[in-house]
């Protein structure tokens, strides 16, 4: 609580005091627990009518939980919610939508086989007799879209949309249901820089028409650009409320982290900046990708004729908007999906076979989805620490329980996994501690290539620093690292070379020193690639 009080006495809370504007929605003293995890601990937020309000905080600060409480997805364990002065604590999503509160989630809730218009009217279908009035639905949806400046192909199937289009379809759906208060959960995480600009235009237009908008984000430049006021959360609590015009990115960052921080813009000046490591780069690549093509499940190409070398002693970062083949590329190298054509070679040997053969050949893999791939959530910490290494921990087919436990005790200590009990169930741990299990397991293998996919997604700041330190240490030992991250700042902070993946091809490969956000952004969106062709 002392941080909380400091923020109050420091006048930060007062800076955000509302001056006369009507309150659209107010949540006070919200507490929400999931098992041992306290996601919200007496969190507050007050949103004025007709403003764009930014809710910021680090990963795991409790932003999404608070918004899910507001929008009726979760009932709070304690606290009250007032909507236009009425107590609506514990309302359901259906009631919230009926009252005009709609949330656009990070993971879209659209039916891929239906068209945009069908998705939007789902549950509120326009009928002609017993039949769906398809044309009428498309007209109505197009009208809602046009009114707010949202560019969506109403007649196209959702499965054929780009991520940006799908997000706009989600917003149209929410508006179609009469949302007057729109909550967007990290809307820019999946967008390219120009798409982000388009989204801001839409949000400003909605505000001009009187819609209230809450945007969850952890990116400070977005806060400064789009919001009228800011609420900052840390460790499940509200630590600051400010008016954007009266604050600076540094103040917001300090409130987010609880101490002075180095901002992204400062990175090249500090030790986090990758140095030129030509001395360490061996003459022969550790990983060679020669003209590989990988298909998605539906048969369409995800990676098309891609070639890339990764040398020992370097981190090659893959930048790109999600869905441009990153997942398929990493899974193909890891042996979790097969390549249609081309070769993958490790230390000069062409890789064949399954994941097990790849581990034996010297690959360590931090998978992008730890809930699906990286962990067996119902297994305890000790059993998860041997996943993929179960052969090392068994003799003649029998698990060596003593060795497994000993290993767990050691890794828990080395990697500060909490709770420090080997038989704690992995699924009940926080995201950061879950990721520490994966990191501990993979980084203590015998390997020459590390595949690190979204290594810090959904991980708290302390764990991020540890993971980044470990990845750099791997590089410094002379091993090769292939890094994929949706967070451009992470790619720029860690990589020695940056390859931009666009539509399954490498659009550009740049030394870190030449890669600026502007240049990368241009390649990520295909602007440059198309101009070159």
């Amino acid at each position, binding site marked *: 609580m002392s941080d909380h009080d400091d923020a109050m006495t420091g006048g930060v809370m007062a800076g955000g005091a509302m001056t006369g504007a009507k309150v659209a929605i107010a949540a006070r003293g919200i507490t929400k*627990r999931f098992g*041992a995890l306290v996601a919200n601990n007496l969190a507050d937020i007050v949103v004025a009518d007709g403003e764009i309000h930014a809710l910021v905080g680090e990963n795991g600060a409790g932003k999404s939980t608070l918004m899910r409480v507001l929008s009726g997805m979760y009932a709070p364990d304690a606290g009250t919610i007032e909507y236009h002065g009425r107590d609506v604590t514990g309302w359901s999503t259906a009631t919230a939508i009926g009252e005009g509160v709609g949330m656009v989630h990070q993971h879209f809730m659209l039916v891929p086989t239906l068209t945009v218009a069908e998705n939007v009217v789902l549950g509120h279908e326009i009928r002609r007799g017993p039949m769906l009035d398809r044309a009428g639905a498309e007209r109505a949806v197009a009208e809602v879209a046009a009114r707010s400046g949202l560019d969506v192909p109403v007649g196209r199937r959702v499965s054929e949309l780009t991520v940006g289009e799908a997000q706009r379809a989600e917003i149209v759906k929410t508006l179609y249901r009469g949302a007057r208060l729109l909550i967007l959960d990290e809307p820019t995480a999946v967008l390219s820089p120009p798409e982000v600009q388009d989204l801001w235009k839409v949000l400003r237009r909605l505000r001009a028409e009187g819609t209230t908008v809450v945007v969850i984000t952890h990116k400070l430049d977005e806060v400064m650009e789009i919001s009228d006021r800011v609420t900052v959360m840390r460790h499940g609590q509200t630590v600051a409320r400010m008016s954007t015009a009266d604050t600076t990115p540094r103040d917001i960052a300090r409130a987010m982290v609880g101490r002075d921080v180095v901002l992204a813009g400062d990175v090249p000046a500090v030790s986090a900046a990758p140095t030129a490591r030509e001395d360490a780069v061996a003459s022969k690549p550790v990983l060679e990708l020669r003209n590989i093509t990988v298909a998605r499940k539906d048969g369409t190409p995800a990676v098309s004729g891609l070639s890339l070398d990764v040398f020992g002693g370097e981190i090659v970062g893959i930048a790109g908007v999600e869905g441009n083949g990153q997942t398929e590329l990493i899974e193909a190298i890891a042996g*979790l999906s097969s390549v249609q054509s081309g070769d993958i070679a490790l230390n000069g040997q062409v890789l064949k076979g399954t994941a097990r053969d790849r581990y034996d050949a010297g690959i360590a893999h931090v998978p992008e989805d730890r809930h699906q791939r990286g962990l067996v959530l119902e297994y305890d910490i000790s059993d998860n620490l041997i*996943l993929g290494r179960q052969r090392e921990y068994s003799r003649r087919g029998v698990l060596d329980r003593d060795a497994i436990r000993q290993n767990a005790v050691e890794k828990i200590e080395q990697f500060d996994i909490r709770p420090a009990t080997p038989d704690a169930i992995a699924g009940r741990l926080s995201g950061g501690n879950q990721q520490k299990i994966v990191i501990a397991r993979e980084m203590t293998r015998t390997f020459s290539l590390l595949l690190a996919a979204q290594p810090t997604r959904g991980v708290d700041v302390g764990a991020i620093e540890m993971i980044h330190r470990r990845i750099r240490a791997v590089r410094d030992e002379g091993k090769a690292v292939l890094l994929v991250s949706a967070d451009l700042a992470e790619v720029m902070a860690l990589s020695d070379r940056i390859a931009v993946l666009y539509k399954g091809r490498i659009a550009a490969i740049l030394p870190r020193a030449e890669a600026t956000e502007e240049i990368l952004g241009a390649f990520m969106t295909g602007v440059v690639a198309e101009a070159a062709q």
Partner: protein
Amino acid sequence: MNWLNRAVEALLPPLLALLVALVLGDLLIMSVGQNPGEVYRLLIEGSWGNPWGFAQVIFKATTLAFTGLAVAIGLRAGVFNIGAEGQLAAGGFMAAIAGLWLPAGMPLLLAIPVCILAAAAGGAAVGAVPGVLKAKFGAHEVIVTIMMNFIVLALLNYVVASHLNVPETLHTPDIQTGGLTRLSEFVPAFHGSAANTAFFIVLAAAAALWWLLFRMRAGYELRAVGLQPQAAEYGGVNVRRVWFAALTLSGAIAGIGGINYVLGYKGYYEEGFAGGAGYLGIAVALVGRNHPVGVIFAALLFATMSQGGLAIHALVPKEIVDVLQAVLIIAMAVSVPEVRRLLGQVRRDVA
């Protein structure tokens, strides 16, 4: 304290489900004008209350434990074997064929293992079909195993009725060797009951499966496949091979179940001997929480209801026991997620 939490989490749902079934049973019994206490007293007396009834419970539980273990091992690997009925029949048939084929003078110590292996092979062959079809072509095992029941039962009926039967009957001739000793040989009070040493074989099988699941690498991988196939694949496990192996092993265990009736009771294969024990194995696995020890207890519970049901026939229709079984299964299906949620809440409140 972690093991205690887990034990509570594992035991509470079946106990709660039993309680719900009992309460509903009370209402049912009262609705036909009888005293529930009296009916339950008769039920216990007719099963655990006398040596013969107890031995019959053991006998009935043995087959159910085999099929329950078979379904449980499949579910642990994430495959739902509905085919235990056909596999049980195929196993019993193969045991009988082995017993017929082996020479009469063969020592039991040799003959019995051969018959058991034959039973396992029969069940495994039936289980391997959905295993191959799932692993190779992605065919859903539920559909394939159900259809395999029709195919196997029909073929066995045909073969027995037209080629292998004793005239005027629907069963094979008596086996020449491989018969299992009845428990009444050791405990004279069990006289008249078919309970036999197959019960000890199923206890050994449960212990072996526990060892496999929780102490062997194969079990670690099998459970990972059942919980999260993608994580297992990431962990270097050949998921399709595990599916195949689990369905085949499941079939083998159900097949061995056939010895209880064929080698331990009748001494021949008889049409329709499975009598639904394969399907009931699904319920036994569910109530036993797919744990080998739980399955043994669940099999004893269902066998008790079945045997005790005969005793209460004088007071209430015996169909009440069928209703109770079904209620127990439904209550179990409901209480598993429910209990987890409640326990989670208690833990939060304590924390």
